[in-house]
């Protein structure tokens, strides 16, 4: 161990702060200049921590579950009544769906309709919140048995959650649809009007750019549009709600505040990737060194 005298050590400490502040500006410049290097470092760190998060996910999940159960016990009665009512309603819908399915099969037989192939999906665990204050993103743990690629679509059990934007060896980052940088082409299911769903970092993304005269109405179902070949048509997204200012927003089906498992779909679409990703080599395609 090197023993330094107290004044010398103090002088060194005094000098180190300005030098390090200069280095901080240096890292800022580096982050701007070489985004690829920074992204690789990030994914390397995420890969390093992914197993740790996977282990920690169990106790954290247990805590969350305990809180949820305590809350559930408190309003068990109301919940039961609500479920009974919902069950009745769903039974009616089930009858309608079965009738429609039969009719659909009949009509398809007459039209020689070629159905879409059933998409492949893999399920991955959400291990960390990769957002920060000004972004909405999560980290999923992947591995040798679960290869994901940039641009793949992530859904939770109810609806669209986001897209894969960065891929490492053991983890991948999913940009959620609520993020400020997220723009999703959608269709209003009732009127077939197209629109763009714009993330605001809040819980409900906004709708923009619908055709004139086709104002989105409260309660319209919103699904993805196949325009721009980024998403397949018809993935469930949410329901239109009018915000406080009267601007149409989308109440998402996906529960983005408590994601634990995500289904990663491969639709074989090579549409628009995030702009910064275009000029980069795909890390999954790069041979291992």
């Amino acid at each position: 161990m090197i023993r330094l005298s107290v004044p010398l050590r103090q002088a060194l400490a005094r000098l180190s702060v300005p030098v390090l502040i200069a280095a901080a500006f240096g890292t800022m410049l580096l982050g701007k200049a070489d985004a690829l290097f920074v992204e690789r470092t990030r994914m390397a760190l995420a890969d390093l921590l992914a197993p740790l998060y996977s282990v920690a996910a169990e106790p954290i999940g247990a805590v969350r579950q305990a809180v949820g159960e305590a809350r559930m016990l408190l309003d068990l009665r109301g919940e039961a009544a609500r479920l009974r009512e919902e069950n009745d309603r769903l039974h009616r819908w089930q009858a309608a769906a079965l009738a429609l399915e039969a009719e659909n099969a009949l009509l398809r037989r007459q039209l020689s309709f070629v159905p879409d192939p059933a998409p492949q999906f893999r399920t991955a665990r959400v291990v960390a919140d990769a957002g920060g204050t000004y972004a909405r993103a999560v980290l999923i743990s992947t591995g040798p048995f679960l290869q994901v690629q940039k641009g793949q679509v992530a859904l939770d059990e109810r609806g669209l959650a986001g897209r894969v934007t960065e891929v490492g060896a053991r983890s991948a980052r999913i940009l959620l649809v609520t993020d400020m940088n997220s723009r999703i082409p959608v269709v209003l299911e009732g009127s077939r009007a197209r629109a763009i769903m714009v993330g605001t970092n809040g819980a409900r993304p906004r709708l923009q750019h619908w055709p004139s005269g086709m104002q989105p109405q409260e309660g319209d179902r919103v699904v993805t549009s196949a325009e721009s070949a980024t998403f397949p048509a018809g993935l469930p997204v949410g329901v239109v709600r009018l915000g406080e200012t009267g601007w149409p927003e989308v109440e998402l089906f996906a529960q983005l505040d408590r994601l634990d498992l995500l289904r990663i779909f491969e639709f074989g679409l090579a549409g628009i990737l995030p702009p910064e990703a275009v000029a980069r080599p795909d890390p999954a395609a790069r041979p291992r060194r």
Partner: protein
Amino acid sequence: MARKGRPASAPGLLARLDALARSAAPSVTTVAAMILAAAPVGLPSLLPAVSLAGVFFWSLFRPASMPAPAAFGIGLLQDLLGFAPLGIGVLTLLLVHAAALRLRRVLAKQSFLLVWLAYCGFAVLAVGLGYTLQALLGWQAPPTVPAIAQLGLTIGIYPPLAWLMARGHRAMQRAEALA
């Protein structure tokens, strides 16, 4: 933590290991808390709140264990974990570290409430600086609501964290008095 070895063999080494563990504890626990804070619990980002509290507290009460390079490393970790533009956390935490060092002669003797008040000032400046840098580096004005939420969280989480850190600090002081 130093393990029990043969007492006669090398007490100097054990004592040195003990001192090393003590001096590394603040940064190591802060880093561990940050990694835990990035886990998904449904809260808005705890990460900057945890790192700011750690760097502030240890710079104030145990500056020898929280040197500027440690603050730099913690800031870098915060930026890398949080997918924020690189450098924001580094600069913020370094400035907080330097300012806390300047003020420590005055602040370290004050009551908890006064230290917390000072910390509120630090948090306002740190979040404001983070917001400004985010706007400059991203070249678009970020929304203000998350920044305000972060400020509230940063200020609110300090008392429990400080209570834990103060316990650790006192335990280390006792161990140093014994050694």
